[in-house]
Structures are given as C-alpha cells and as structure tokens.
C-alpha cells in the first residue's frame, strides 16, 4: 500500500518538476529563436523555394498554402523551367528536402506537406498563406478545403518581394458581424510572439507590427478566432463572427469538459437562465421538469427545509444511499441547495457509466455537477437582481366542523357496536351537537378550524443579488453577493407568548468570488472563494412536520384554543392542542435558532506542458470546505389553563374559571454546535492533440478527499482516494471512442478490499459527418452513441466498518450503562453494567457494483430547428448490502450484513425541442420525458406462502394490499353465502364496509389476499414541457411538469376519522362523504366506508386507500420585458429586465383535496409535511 502510493505520487511530481525545468529551458530556446531577426538570416534568394512558389503563382494562376517554417530559407540547387507543369516542378524541388505536395480538392491550390515520418519542428501547425494584393482581410482557418475566398484572390508579387523591416502601426476596430457593434476586450496578438493588445471599450485597437507579413490573431470568447495578415494595410477593420454554438458547445464531464458533439456519455445540462426563472431558495427545486433523467420529489415547503429529493434515473438499490454525488466546480459538496442560483452557470447531470465511471465507488447513483460563473475579459459588468415573492400554500386540507364531527363520531360508535356486540351509547348528545353547530357555547362547545387559526394566507420572500464580472486578459473575475429571505406561514403568536415567535424563517447570505489568473502563457490559476451563511429560526421541537401534523390532528372540539389571551384546554388528560405543539413542541418548548456557515475555498493551477510534447498539460487543485452550525435554543414552560364551568358555564348563565395547569418557570438557554471540514486535493495530467484526422485526448488524475465530521463513527475522518484515467479518440469527427477508468479506495472496507476498479467504454458515430450522408436541411446532425461500464456505490447503508470482527458492546440504554439492577429498590439496589454481542462482522463486505448500459441518439432536424436526444438505459446493481433473511431466529444472533442483493433498473429518456423565429417573434417548445423502472432481483427474502406475495421480482417499494371492489351497501350482499369470510372484524361485516376480493380463492379474505397494488411512491415517469416565446423585448415561458406511475397510501390522518385515537383526532371534511344508511338511501355521493372508532375491516391495507399520485403542474411561469433604450444608456444602464414569475401555480391531480401528490410520507406517524407553497414573484434585473 505504501509503496503503491509512493509510486503514484512520485510520478506526477517528477513530471511536474521536470515539466518546470523543461519549461524554463524551452523558454530560453524559444527566446533565442525569436530574438534573431528571421529576415536577416533568411533573406530570400532567387533560388529560394518561396520565391519560386511566388513566381509559379503568377505564371500558373495557382495558390500555395504552406507552413512557413517548412520552406523558409530552403533553396533548390537545380535549374527549373518555370513554365513546366506546376506539379512536375514541385516534384523536382520538394523531394530532395523531404517535402511533398497535395492538390486541394476542387481548387487550383496546392498545399505543401512534410513526407511521412518527417517531424515538424514547429510546436503548432500553422498555415500561412502567400499574400495577395488584396486589401480584404482574409480569414484563416485550418480547414482550407472549405475555403472559398481563395479563389477570389489575386496575386501581387510586388508586395511580397519587398520585405519591410521597420515597425508598422496598425489600427482598426473590431465589430460583431451581426450587430455591427464594437467589441471591447478582444485580444489581438501577433502570431508567434507574445505581443498583444486588447481592444478598447468601443472595439478600437492599435498595434505595432514588425513587418507586413505579420499575422494578427483576433480572439474573443464566444466568437470564432480570426487570423489576418497585415499586408499593406494600416487600418484593419475586423468583424468577428459569433462562434457556431453547436460546434463549440462544451459539456461538463467528470474532471473536465468535452465538446458536446464529441461526447459519448449520457449527459444533460441546464443553464443559469432557466435556473433563475424559479423563485425558489433551492437549486434542487428549480431543476424539476427541466432535465431528462432527473426525478425530483419535494416533500415539504418549510422555509430552509424545502429541498427536493433528487434521483438520477430513479433508484437502483434497496440499501444505503440513493442520492447522486454532487459537485460544485469539481469539488464534492454535501449541500448544494444553499448556493445562490445567480452564481450558477450551469447544472449538469451525468447519467451513464461512461460519464460516471471516473467517480468509481461514488458514481453509481449518478452525478450532479454545478458550474459557477466566471469572469470574461472586458470592462466590469454589474448586474443587480431584486425579487419580491409572495408565498401561500398550494393546497390545504379542509377539516370537519364540530357538529359533523360529533354526529359522525356517534355513527361510528353505532356501527362499531354491531361488530363488538356492545350496546350503542352515543358519545355526544343532541344538545351537544346543536351547541357545536350554533356556536352559542364557544368555550365548551368549540368548532375550531385549526388550519385557519394556525396559518396565515400569505408570507413574503425576497432576494437580492449583485454580481460584478470582467477583467483584463490576464486577470478575470466574477464576484457575487446575495441575500435571500423567506418567512413561514405560521401566524404570529406574539400576543400569546411575547418572548419569542416560533415562526419558521430562513435567511441566507451568499458571497462568491471566482478569479482566473493567466500568470504566464503556460501557467494559469483559478481561485474560487465562496461562503453561504444560513440563519434559521423556528420552533424548538423535533421538527415542524410534527406541528403541522398536530394542526391536522387536532379535533375541532377538543379545545377552543385561546380564551382571553390564554391557551386553554377544556378536557383533562392528553390533548392535541396545536398551540401547545407550536409553542411548546414535544414538551421541549420554545425557540430554536440555527446559524450555519459554509466556507469554501479552492485553488487550481493549470500548467501547459506543451514544451514536453504538444497538447500536454497538467493541473493541481486544492479545496478546503468548512461547515459549522451553531444552534441556540431558548425554552420556557408554556402556561396553559383548564377552563372549568362555574354554575353550568356561560350557556347556563354561569361563568368560566381558568385554572392554570402549569407554573411559570424561568427561561432556559442552551446551545449546541457542530463543525465539519473537508479537504480535497487533485492532480491531473491532460493530453489533447490532433494528428491529422486522429484526435486524441487523455486524462490521468489523482484525487483524494477527506471529510472530518464529529458525527462520523469512531471520529475517524472519511477518506476517498481515486485514480482516474480517460482516453478519448475520434477519427475525423465521425468515429468516437472513449475509455474511462476509475480506481477508487475508501476506508469503509477491509484493507485488502478497499480499492475497486471501475472501467467504462463508449463508442459514438456521427453519421451526419460521413461523405455519403445526404447534406440536406432535413437532417443536419445525427449521432449514435453507446456505453457500457461499471460504477460503484460505497454508501451502502449500515454502519461504518462492517468488516470489523464481531464486537461486544457495553449495554447502553437511555444513557445508562447499567444492564440490570439487583438489590432492593431505593436502598440496596446496585446497577450492573452489561456486555452484549454487538454487530456481527463480515470481513468480505464491499461496495455495490452497478453495470450500466446506455444507447443514445442525437439528432438535429430542419436546419437545427428541431433537436432531439433519446437514450435507453439498463442498469444491474449487484452486491447490494442486505442482511440474510432466511436464517432461523433460533440462532439468537443478528446476522451480518452481506453483499447479497441484486436489482435492475431500466428505462428511457427523450428530450426534444423546437426553436423558430418568424420575424421578431421567436418561440420555443421543449419537452422531456423520463421513465425508469426498477426490479428487485434478489434479497434473500423469506419465501412467502404464496409466490405472488414475494417482494423479490417487484419494483422497490411496491405497495401490497387487498384489492378493494367498492363497498357493501346492503345486508343482502353481506348475507350472500358466496361472500368470502373475512378474517377481519371477526367477519362481522355490515353495509358500508369495503368489499375485498378473495384473490387466492380460498374462501377467506385475509392477509394472504394482499397482492401488488399500484406502484411505489417513487414516480416511474417524469416529464416536463416548456413553452416559450419572445417578441421584441417581451418574453414569456411556461413550464408544465408532471409525474406518472406513482402511488400514495393515505396516512392515518388522511384516510381516517381519528375517532379511535386517544385523544380523538380531527378529520378531513371530505370524510363527510362516508357511507351512512341515510346517505345511501338519499343516493348522495359516497366515497368512503362507514365511520368507525376502531372496530371494522376497513383499516386493512387495501387498494381502497391507495391513491394514484400522478400529477401535472404548472410548475413555473415567467413573463418578462427587457428595456434596451437609449435613455437607459445615458444612465449607464445597458439593459433592464422586469419580470414576474410564479411557481407551483396550478396542479391537476387525482389525489384527495388538501393532499399534495408529492407528499411521500407513508407511515402512520404523527407528522405531516409542511405543505408546498405557491410563490408569485416580481423581479427586476439591471445591468450596468
């Protein structure tokens, strides 16, 4: 191990040190080259080949293209007849000096090339063209074959024959060839030298060149680079063409970028424009519906706690972690949701093995990469954004009022008495029900709508962001500061408890500065510093879900809530009083404030090792992240009162006495904190080079990461070591091949099992580049790609270090290490510590391994108006960590976790967009759809009595239950001798009970009739549809998002009346449509079985309570107007955009009202998610 490491380390270091040395010696060599005036040394003589070629151009009306170095100073000793055939002359002249020529296709031009085997001396292949006496500036590109301008050139011998020795001052203006506006900050460099200038803010420049043959290189990000020979001109006006985006577009891949057209992996990206459209705090929430392959579920809307759960291509394992690996600018982060969307350039997800294999044991769940914005050379650009948003709940469950509640409670008791054989005794008298209904006794017969009492209608959120970017050639910067403020929807409680408000609030401060330094032409540095500070305030309970749960759990009649500014109960014993839950949650009481700070710094150096061999570069990167969290809690006992009626209470002319139930106590203060840090270091060697039609890139990289977290077992930091390799190859931009290798280690496994090797292979074919491919507008681009590879997952669940031998543990229980007490209680008792068998070790435990396959098709149709990407994928995950299930419990041992599980996951993704412009009206339709279905192949499940009950072979989380076939309505149906016998409710079935199917036909309805019903609670389908249009300054876009193939099992609160609970709980108003004889006789709609307190067959898990949780949402709408007036320009404002956008505007769903389909809670716990919010937002963006 140690040896290995040393080798791995010394190699790159040696390379680096050598690289440095070589670099310096190379510099000297070059310097001497450059310092000697070429013209003096290589004065062209009459028998120089250059002179000859120039003559031939005139005589034969041909053009020559060549690399100057090849023939500079070369002569031909033999005599030549200049009127011979050009090719004959060339053969004679070039062969002796190891050169050859080639006629360029379809033109009267020749290029001169070295013979095979002859190495060029130059570092870079540069074509230089013999000058013509034309004042037109000539674009020079490597692709001469396509160049048409050559034909128009007219030779002019005179100019060439007279070399100029003195400096020439050239001036000009650089403009955009579409807008004709001056381009500031364009880099103008004299080719082959380090000399260069930048264009001014108006696009003008002046540069001194040595001679007329000097070549000026105009380069600017986002534009095609242009090379122009100065020639005779002193004024050179240049128009730059914006780069063809489709050719230049790059995609972010693991440890680097690739040209999008060359990528063979399955990758999706969205950029800043779409991200900032969503007025949300979390990036995860703005990704929803916008990227194929991304499944997101947002299960709550609480400020600061509303992020979506992201799954890439669904879920492939039933154990451990299914979160994707998340990286910001190449550095792994645990929380990406706190980044200001305004700082982000793009978000990319890597989906298949080809793109994720380099992450090895971290990559199996996919990878999400966030790239932040960087500065571009130019004057400072200042952008300020302000958003003001208004939040309200998307939906709220309407609850039963007290009169209905009491009436229904009585019907429940009545129905249950049939089952239990009890005598029906109503709980609420008719007088009670009347008082509940008429509100005449608000204290002792209340009817409280708790949601109205506890929640506000609207709360606000606001966001400010200012960013400045710009720079010169050598230093570029992007700095940004943001503030986000969000308030929750609980009502103010200041009048009840003046000490604090347990309202959920969230405030975030973001600061980022990204710097790029070009220290030398070869050495570049990047420095990124960012911080996210979060301030949360809220109740000091276990969670807000419990409080929301209590709001919907409280019955309307259990307490009037607040009387005379005092929190009141009217019954003794345990109560659900939402005020108590909010102000004194879980008896912990009070207020919790939390201050979280994330500090991230990253330094990266890139060094061009072109001096060793062309195309070689190296980089090193060190990043340090720290996170600390301080929690301050202020607690205080809540004073509640018991209302006691005096002389029959107000309704009988008496009074109310409020008796304190608790006594005042002092404030308590406590604080807790945590501190985490992570250090990541990386060293890599990149290689990129073209040999004719062969384009090769390579990457060798070492990466290590260590996370220090006080919560980690044994306080041992968590480390990763990765060796990464990648080779890509393309031939002529048509045939693509790529090999990615990851070799990763983690301390989570036994020393000999720590490292795993994860290779992936991919191939691609760009058919549209083939000569035979018809060049029509119908299909402008066609690429087919496929990948196969292995990826791992080391987050396999269970505790850390499962490989350790079986350990014994001291028994520790409720912080008491005593296992048992002997002796007399209170006098002679003695605690005895305990020792017990702990986790059973398994030395063989290792990572999960996923084999992923992917085939993709990319097309652009109708002159690129339609773009289409389609992928199908299939993944098999093996070695999933699970506990053997089939060993009898009589061994008295918790069996060790083993890598025994197996699962598959397959599906497809489609992404299609259509862009067009009719006059000033541009519009866009984009749709994406993803489908992923998984299946558990093996998990050592105990075989069920009936095979159809096995979970193996089903999708993960598949719901099982009885099949409900409506309700029984009459005793006639129930007394039918053919009705299956219910093992529920002792077969005492009555009208209003659910009719279950006897699936296995044994005459009994029991748990053996539970079969797969519906889907799981993770959607299998997700889709998004974006419609966008712009007309002059106006723009509008709408995002529809939806999911399908997903089920939700109603929780106890949602499906029940809560009558059977102690104390009785509230019930949704839709439950009023439960079966009663009266409703049935009156033919009123009946949606639910009869009421019940706790006796009946209707609570058995069945399809009756399983909802189709698919939905379609207007996830986002945005309308904007951009002002580009001259008035603004006078104010120094370059553009202003005002806009309004909205999130979660409307939802079409099939689930019961008041329940969000994304609510994934499945258990019958006492919690409910904080409902999702709808945000309506107004914003302005000003650019200076």
């Amino acid at each position, binding site marked *: 191990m140690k040896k290995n*490491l040393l080798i791995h380390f010394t190699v790159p270091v040696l390379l680096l040190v050598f690289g440095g040395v070589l670099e310096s010696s190379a510099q000297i060599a070059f310097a001497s080259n450059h310092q000697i005036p070429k013209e003096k040394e290589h004065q062209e003589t009459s028998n120089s080949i250059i002179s000859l070629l120039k003559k031939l151009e005139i005589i034969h009306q041909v053009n020559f293209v060549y690399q100057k170095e090849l023939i500079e100073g070369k002569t031909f000793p033999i005599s030549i007849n200049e009127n011979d055939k050009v090719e004959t002359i060339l053969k004679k002249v070039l062969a002796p000096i190891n050169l050859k020529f080639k006629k360029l296709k379809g033109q009267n031009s020749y290029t001169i090339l070295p013979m095979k085997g002859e190495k060029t001396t130059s570092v870079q292949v540069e074509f230089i063209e013999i000058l013509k006496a034309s004042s037109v500036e000539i674009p020079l590109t490597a692709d001469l074959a396509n160049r048409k301008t050559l034909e128009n050139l007219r030779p002019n011998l005179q100019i060439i024959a007279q070399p100029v020795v003195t400096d020439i001052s050239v001036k000009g203006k650089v403009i955009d060839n579409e807008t004709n506006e001056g381009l500031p900050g364009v880099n103008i460099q004299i080719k082959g030298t380090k000399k260069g200038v930048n264009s001014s803010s108006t696009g003008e420049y002046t540069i001194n060149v040595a001679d007329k043959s000097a070549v000026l290189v105009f380069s600017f990000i986002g534009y095609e680079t242009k090379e122009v020979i100065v020639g005779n001109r002193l004024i050179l006006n240049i128009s730059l063409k914006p780069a063809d985006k489709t050719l230049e577009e790059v995609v972010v891949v693991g440890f680097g970028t690739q040209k999008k057209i060359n990528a063979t992996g399955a990758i999706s990206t969205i950029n800043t424009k779409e991200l900032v459209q969503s007025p949300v705090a979390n990036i995860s929430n703005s990704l929803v519906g916008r990227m194929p392959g991304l499944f997101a579920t947002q299960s709550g809307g609480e400020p600061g706690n509303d992020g979506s759960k992201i799954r890439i291509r669904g879920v492939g394992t039933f154990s451990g972690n299914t979160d994707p690996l998340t990286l910001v600018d190449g550095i792994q982060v645990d929380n990406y949701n706190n980044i200001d969307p305004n700082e982000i350039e793009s978000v990319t997800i890597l989906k298949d093995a080809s793109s994720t294999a380099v992450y090895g044991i971290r990559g199996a769940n996919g990878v999400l990469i966030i790239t932040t914005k960087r500065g571009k050379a130019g004057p400072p650009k200042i952008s300020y954004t302000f958003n003001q948003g208004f939040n309200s709940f998307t939906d709220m469950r309407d609850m039963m009022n007290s009169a209905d509640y009491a009436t229904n409670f009585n019907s429940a008791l009545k129905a249950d008495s049939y089952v239990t054989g009890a005598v029906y005794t109503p709980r609420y008298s008719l007088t009670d029900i009347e008082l509940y209904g008429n509100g005449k006794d608000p204290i002792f017969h209340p009817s409280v709508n708790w949601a109205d009492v506890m929640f506000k209608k609207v709360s606000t959120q606001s966001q400010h962001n200012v960013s400045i970017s710009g720079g010169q050639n050598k230093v570029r910067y992007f700095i940004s500061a943001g503030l986000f403020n969000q308030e929750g929807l609980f009502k103010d409680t200041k009048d009840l408890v003046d000490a604090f408000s347990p309202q959920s609030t969230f405030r975030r401060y973001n600061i980022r500065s990204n710097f790029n330094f070009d220290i030398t032409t070869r050495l570049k540095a990047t420095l990124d510093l960012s911080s996210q500070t979060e301030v949360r305030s809220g109740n000091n309970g276990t969670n807000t879900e419990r409080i929301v749960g209590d709001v919907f759990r409280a019955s309307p009649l259990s307490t009037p809530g607040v009387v005379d500014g005092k929190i009141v109960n009217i019954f003794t014993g345990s109560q659900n009083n939402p005020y108590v839950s909010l102000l004194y949650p879980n008896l912990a009481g009070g207020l919790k404030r939390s201050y979280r700070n994330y500090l991230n710094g990253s330094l990266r150096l890139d060094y061009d090792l072109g001096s060793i061999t062309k195309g070689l570069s190296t980089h090193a990167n060190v990043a340090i992240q720290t996170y600390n969290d301080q929690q301050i809690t202020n607690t205080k006992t809540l004073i509640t009162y018991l209302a006691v009626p005096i002389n029959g209470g107000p309704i009988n002319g008496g009074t109310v006495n409020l008796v304190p139930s608790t006594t005042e106590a002092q404030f308590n203060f406590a604080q807790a904190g945590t501190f985490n840090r992570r250090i990541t270091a990386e060293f890599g060697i990149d290689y990129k080079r073209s040999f004719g039609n062969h384009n090769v890139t390579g990457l060798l990289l070492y990466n290590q990461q260590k996370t220090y977290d006080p919560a980690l077992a044994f306080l041992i930091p968590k480390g990763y070591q990765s060796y990464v390799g990648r080779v890509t190859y393309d031939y002529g931009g048509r045939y693509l091949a790529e090999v990615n290798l990851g070799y990763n280690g983690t301390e989570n496994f036994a020393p000999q099992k720590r490292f795993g090797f994860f290779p992936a292979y991919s191939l691609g074919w760009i058919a549209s580049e083939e000569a035979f491919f018809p060049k029509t507008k119908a299909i402008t681009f066609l690429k087919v790609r496929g990948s196969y590879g292995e990826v791992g997952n080391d987050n396999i669940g269970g505790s850390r270090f499962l490989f350790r031998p*079986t*350990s014994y543990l001291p028994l520790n229980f409720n912080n008491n290490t005593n296992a048992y007490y002997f002796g007399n209680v209170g006098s002679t008792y003695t605690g005895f510590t305990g020792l017990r068998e702990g986790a059973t070790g398994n030395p063989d435990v290792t990572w999960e391994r996923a084999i992923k396959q992917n085939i993709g098709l990319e097309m652009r149709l109708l002159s690129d108006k339609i773009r289409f990407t389609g992928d199908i994928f299939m993944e098999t995950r093996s070695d999933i960590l699970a506990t053997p299930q089939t060993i009898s419990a009589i061994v*008295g041992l918790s069996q060790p976790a083993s890598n025994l599980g197996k699962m598959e996951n397959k599906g497809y993704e489609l992404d299609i967009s259509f862009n067009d412009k009719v006059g000033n009206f541009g519009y866009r339709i984009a749709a994406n759809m993803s489908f992923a279905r998984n299946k558990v192949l093996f998990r050592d499940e105990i075989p069920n009595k009936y095979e159809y009950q096995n979970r193996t072979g089903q999708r993960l989380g598949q719901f099982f239950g009885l099949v409900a076939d409506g309700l029984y309505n009459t005793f006639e149906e129930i007394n039918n001798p053919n009705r299956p016998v219910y093992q529920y409710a002792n077969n005492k079935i009555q009208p209003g009970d659910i009719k279950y199917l006897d699936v296995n036909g044994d005459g009994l309805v029991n748990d053996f009739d539970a079969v797969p019903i519906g889907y799981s609670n993770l959607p299998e389908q997700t889709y998004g549809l974006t419609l966008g249009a712009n007309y002059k300054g106006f723009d509008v876009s709408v995002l529809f998002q939806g999911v399908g193939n997903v089920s939700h099992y109603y929780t106890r609160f949602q499906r029940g009346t809560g009558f059977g609970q102690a104390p009785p709980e509230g019930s949704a108003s839709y439950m009023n449509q439960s079966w009663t004889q009266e409703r049935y006789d009156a033919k009123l709609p009946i949606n639910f079985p009869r009421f019940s307190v706790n006796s009946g067959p209707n609570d058995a898990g069945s399809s009756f309570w399983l909802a189709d949780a698919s939905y379609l949402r207007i996830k986002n709408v945005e309308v904007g107007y951009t002002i580009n007036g001259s008035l603004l320009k006078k104010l120094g404002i370059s553009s202003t955009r005002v806009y309004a956008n909205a999130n979660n505007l409307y939802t079409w769903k099939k689930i019961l009202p008041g329940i969000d389909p994304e609510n994934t809670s499945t258990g019958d716990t006492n919690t409910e998610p904080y409902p999702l919010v709808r945000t309506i937002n107004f914003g302005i963006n000003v650019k200076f």
Partner: protein
Amino acid sequence: MKKIILLFTVLFCSLISFSCEQNFLDKAPGVDLVEDNVFLTKANMESFMATIYRYGMHSIFRYRMQGDIPFSQVNNTDCIHPSTSISDEGDASEAAFVNNNRWNEGVVLPNNIVNVEDFRYYIRWIALRQIALVIKRVNEVPDADEAYKKQVVAEVKFLRAMNYLEMVKRYGGVPIVDKVYEAGVKVDVPRSSFEDCMKFIVKDLDEAIPNLPAAYSASLVGRATAMAAITVKAKALLLAASPQFNSATPPISMTNVTDNKLISYGNYDVNRWKLAADAAKTALDYASANGYALIDDVANRSPKELDNGTTGPLGNYRVSWETNNNKELILSYQFTTSTGGITNVGNPPVTFFNPSCFGSFWSGISVPLNFIRKYEDTLGRAVSWDATGGTDLIAKYRSLDPRFKQSVTYTNAYHSSSDPIAQIYTGGKDYVNCKGGVWYRKYIPRSFRTANYVPNDPILRVNELYLYYAEALNESSGPVANAYTAINAIRNRSKMPNLPVGLTQEQFRQRLRNESAIELYGDDHRFWDIKRWLIGEDDGVMKGAFEGLQITRVGTAPNYTYTWKPYTFENRVFNKNYYLHPFPQSEVLKGNLIQNPGW
C-alpha cells in the same frame, strides 16, 4: 520562472505529505471488546450475567424494551400492556393501539403474534445463545473460583428453564438450542416434542437447584435462588399435568397426526398431577424453611377502605404486591427508579395501564363484570349481579371479598393523592371508557404520583405455590385435607372463610379455579390458566358477551348514591386455535418450524 517552480514544488510537497502518510485511508479502529473479553475476568463475567438477566427474565407487565433490541423484527412500540386485558380480567378500551385488543377482536395472526403478545420471541433466543455461551466457556474465567462457576452455570440453567417454560406454554414443543451457532450459517433444528422440552426444563432445574444459593446479600436480591428454581419446577410440572397437554389428543390435531407429540403428551397420566403436587409440596416446605411465607398479619386481613379521599390501612393482600421485595416474593424483575426517571426500562409500565383520566397515561384497563362476578361476598357466597341492576353500588362493593377493593379502583375509591376520589359514574371524569365499571389498579400503589413510579415486577410468589399444591392434589388424589389447608391459607389471610368441607372433586376444582383467578388477579396467570384448563371457549371467559356496569349518581351532595345496571359492551371471539400461539409467519417460512394447528 523560479517562482513558478517553487510554487509547484511547495504545492505538491504539501499534497504528498498530506497523502503519503502511512496510509491516506484511515484504519478502522481495532475491535478491542470481543467474546473473549467476557471470560477474561470475573467482573466482565458479571456484566455478561447482568445482560443475560436483562434479556432472559420476563416481566408480567411486558415492558417495551425500547431501543434495546438488536433484532429489527421487533416493533418496540408494541405490546405494552399486561396480559390482563386479553382475558376476562380486563379490557383495554381506551386506545385502539393496545394490541391486546386484537385478541378480543379475534384478529390474532401468525404475522402479528410478536406484536400482540410474544414480544420476547426474538429476545429469548438471544438470551439462550448467551446462556449456551456461558455454559461453554465459563471455565475459562481465570479469577473465578469453582463455586462461582457452578453458581453461574446454575443461574443460566435456571434462566434457560424459565425461558423454555415461557415458550412451551405458548407454543408447545420448540427447538432445543443448547449451543452457540456460527453467523451466516443456516440452522435447521426442528421442534422437539412437548415431552422432550419438559424433560429439558426439568433437567436444567434439577442441575441448577443444588448449586444455587438459598439467598443473596441484600445488594444481590433478584438473582436466581434455589427457591426460585424449585418454584419454576413446580410451575412447569403443573403445566405438564394440565388438561391442555396431559391428554391423548390436543384440542385441535396437527395436520399430520404424528406431529401431535409436539403439542401434547399423547396420553393422560394421573401421575403427572402427582409429580406436580410433590413438586409444589417440596417448594412450600423449602419456602417455610428459608423464610418465604404469605404475608398474613391477622390485623390486616380485612382493611377498612375509607372511600373518603384518604387512605385506609394497608391490607395483607395489598402489601404482598405493593411493597418491594417482601417475604412473599420469590423472584422479581428488579426495576429501579432513580433521579430523572426510569433507568431500566423505556417507558415505565404505569404509563401504559394507568387510565388516561388520571393524567398523562395511555390506556387504562377496566374490569368486566364477568370477572367482578367471581368475587364472593365476605361470607364466601357467590354474589348475584342482576340484569335489572341495583340501587346501591357502594354497599354492593362493601359486601365483596376484601381483595376486590385492594385490586381495583371503583366508584369513590382512593386512587392516588392527585385523584383522591374516583369519579366513576355517568358524567364523572373517570368513567369515560371505563366500560367494565371499575379500573384495574393492581401495581399502581397508593403512594404513586408520577408515571415514573416503577413497581416491583413479581415473577414468582409464594401464594401461587399454595394454589398449585391444592390444584395438583385435588387432581391426583381428590379434595384431600391438605388441599383444603392450602387453599384456606390463601383465603384466610384475606379474611375469607374456609371452603365448605365435603366438596366433590369437580366442585373443589371450580372453587380452586375461582380462587386462583381472584388471588392471582393481574399477575399474568389468568390468561395462561384459561389456556391450560382449556376453558377459553366457555361463555364469558374469553368468548361471548362481556358486560360492564352503567353507573348513575343520584341524590345531592354529600348524600349521593350510585345505581348500577349491567350492559354488554362487547362480544369477544375465541377460536380453538388460540390455545396455542402461532409461530411468527416469517419464522415458519424459513422451514424448520411446523406451524401449530389452526394457524
């Protein structure tokens, strides 16, 4: 240029020094506490013994072993009530989540048995594994003397016998596990016959008794004594002689008749009753020779309950369960309170079964009239509770066996200092959900204030031996004088008159069963006795109409009277297969267990 080289060198040297530590990836800490450590010192051995007691002792309250269960199969929120609310002893009507209700509703199933009754199913096997380990390795403990080693082996054998008895009474024959199995290896040990299991239990006890001390020092009270082992033996032999197992055929036959030996002896042998009687006699003799006895202070045989919001004198019967480690207790689970609450269990038991009308508690147990009818009057006569009802409930209660008022909270009773007068009548706060008409209050002492109070959890008591002896004698030899003596000792210490002489064997049997129900009320006996005697199907025992009292307060303060009228509050279900528990469904599907009949 030099700067650049320097910069890179510094950067990468730091990178190397950072990563070329011995190993970049940390080593997991070694495991320094393994099985060997248990047997390294006597002190460690004692810790291990404490653990075995923790897992191996059962509790009549069936505490949640919250957060303490290595097996994920156990839902630690379940099974929170004493078995009282399963049988005619009680009704847990306040909360639907009390799983004992499932028995009354007839929805006990193989896949919920662990949650509705046998929550120790998995824990027991852990204890048995630990016990086998002690027997295998105790000799390795270097600083333990032979006497200690013998005592430890005897203790674990006692605990093993007790756990097997707990299993056998639930399931019949179960697999005999007397060794330590390897991890990850399939084990296919089948069920042993009922007879072999009984032999295994008796053998363990016989081997344990000679090596167990008669008593411990005060600080070790609660460990297994010879008295405890002798008592368990009497209990085991009584079970073996009982109608459920001591018969030619089981109540329901197994699918494969040859498997009936798993759940029955296959014949009736009166000698089994003889053995049981002898064992009980031995136990009684050993008890009186070693200071165990019934609490029988003549002055306190019939305490006067004041029923006016203050406590009266403490009766013998109440003392026997309300005071910790009294002379009547043979073995108790030693729960402990300490500052800040309970240190030995998750939630204190009183939280679960003290009625919620008395504070923050979950679900009280009300006592059905079916059971109240068993209380004789103070003269030893049956009491009639007419369907038409009566006008003076207080007087009715006053006429009952003194043990009635010591076992339950009734109208106007003193419950605790925070609720001095129980308002059990229509409109009274303590009547809601009190379907039976009185609340179970045994093990909720009068001094009780908060839920954190933890009573002694008596597992074995002297009074049960008298009843075992009387029962076994009557079955083996008829109602002989010694049988009378034994049962009358129990009755007399609560000022109940002797049983009339000249009863037939059957009459004596019925009187004895009634006496056992009253004397051992709420002590986790009734549910098992009903099964042992095969009387679950009898009307009103675990099946049929369950009645309560409608109680109405009449008159004006302070001269209230209380009228009563019986009403049916529920009809219960008892299926014949209930006599034996089903094995957990998942365990049966693993292949080595044959499921009990009817499940």
